[in-house]
């Protein structure tokens, strides 16, 4: 629960603290007070649990996400499909992949509220005709998944991932 009057501990941040984190490290108890933005930057999930994720909750979050930022009403509609940010807030559905760029700022805040993060850490997609960077990112992700499979002793999966990694590496 927010403790009124407390400000965020992060240097230079004067926002009201909404997250009060008590940690026990080496038998020493410490308490940190953080605002939502600093908490999420530290990877702390501030989303409240709900018993069943109803569309209405999600739309309410959308509303909040939209209201918090002044000037969002001026966001240009998506150039590709013509959806406006207001139209998105009404239905909760985006119209095309370009909407993610058109509404990037508002969406980043919304995604962070919903998921507790906005950075994808799962599968890296390899498009048909990949560039060297695409290949590198994909390989990194595969190696990460391989380590994880080995750690959790899922050797069947590890073998599949190893084959996939080998397929990327130059022959010989």
């Amino acid at each position, binding site marked *: 629960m927010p403790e009124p009057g407390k400000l965020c501990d992060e240097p230079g941040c004067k926002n009201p603290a909404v997250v009060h984190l008590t940690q026990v490290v080496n038998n020493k108890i410490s308490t940190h007070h953080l605002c939502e933005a600093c908490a999420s930057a530290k990877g702390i999930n501030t989303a409240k649990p709900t018993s069943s994720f109803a569309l209405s909750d999600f739309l309410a979050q959308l509303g909040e996400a939209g209201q918090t930022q002044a000037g969002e009403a001026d966001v240009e509609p998506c150039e590709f499909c013509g959806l406006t940010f207001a139209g998105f807030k009404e*239905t909760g559905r985006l*119209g*095309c992949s370009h909407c993610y760029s058109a509404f990037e700022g508002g969406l980043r805040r919304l*995604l962070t509220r919903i998921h507790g993060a906005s*950075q*994808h850490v*799962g*599968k890296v997609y390899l498009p048909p005709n990949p560039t060297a960077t695409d290949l590198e990112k994909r390989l990194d992700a595969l190696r990460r998944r391989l380590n994880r499979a080995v750690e*959790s002793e899922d050797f069947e999966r590890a073998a599949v991932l190893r084959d996939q990694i080998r397929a990327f590496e130059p022959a010989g």
Partner: protein
Amino acid sequence: MSEPFRKPDFGLEWLDADGPHADIVLSTRVRLARNLQGYAYGSRARVNDREAVYKTVQSAVDPVGTFEGAEMLQMRKLGERTRRIFLERRLVSRDLLGPDPSTAPTGAAVVVSERDPLSLMVNEEDHLRLQSLMSGLRFTEAWSVVDRLDDEIGQNLSYAYHHEFGFLTSCPTNAGTGLRASALVHLPGLVLTKEIERVLQGLAQVGLTFRGLYGEGSEVVGNFFQISNQTTLGKSEEDLIDHLERIVGTVIQTELQARQVLIRDAASVTEDKIWRAYGLLRYARSLTFEELMNLLSGVRLGVSLKLLPDLRVYTLNKIMILSQAAHLDEAAGRELSTPERHAHRAEYVRRMLETEGNAA
């Protein structure tokens, strides 16, 4: 009746009850949402977008071994009843069929593998919905086959993908991995011992959520709960899958403990409940689907507790799916009225219990 999709057991392998904990976990489902670059989604998609998406996906699916010999079925070209049968078999979603039962949206299609427990919906809320549906608790296996299919199809398509937000989806609640995994679990012990609320609240605290039999917005019937992940972004697919597998495993253990409590503290009441449910199913002349589901729940518990030894979980699974409205209409060869349907359902259940296991 020559088309493969008219076979009586088309797409029903997940009913086999051969997976781990199949008496408690009816099925495990893992689905991935994917979209194509260059076309609008969902309600923003125009007819020509939808047609182009259908054609693009079809040509990407053709060379994929999983779908060898399988036809991509356009919902529009199927009869209304066949569409409803697909829905009752959980091969398509309500969203794919659209709001008007008499016709389906342009380009809405499904392809069901004849080889693997995999299917693919086209032009749903997202352009592609890849799905694996398996009997019992099998998150890792279901994820593994969907993951492979995604790689195979993804090679032939240009997915909408963002370096930060991951795979882009129509609804932001699916963005990132696009992965929604769920297990359909039968929890009568927790309901009867009134522990269920505590368990469901616990799920919310660990980032999971629950729904009824048919997913989003559907009611809980017959003590079946569909448990799934709530978030899709910021965690890897394997993390999401492992977490679900662990938590659902814990829910199963809690359910088993609740059943032990019932047997220990209320043996005669529990046994009476189970036999009454069996008796009603065995002799009733009219059954609504809801009543059937509630009675089946009691009988399923009886089979699990080995009180009804000659009855198989597979038979109960079949009854549950094949006694739904469109399946009964199909068997009768015509559209039944509501009272007729209740009578046909009761007759079908009596016949199944008589031929596939007589507990008495």
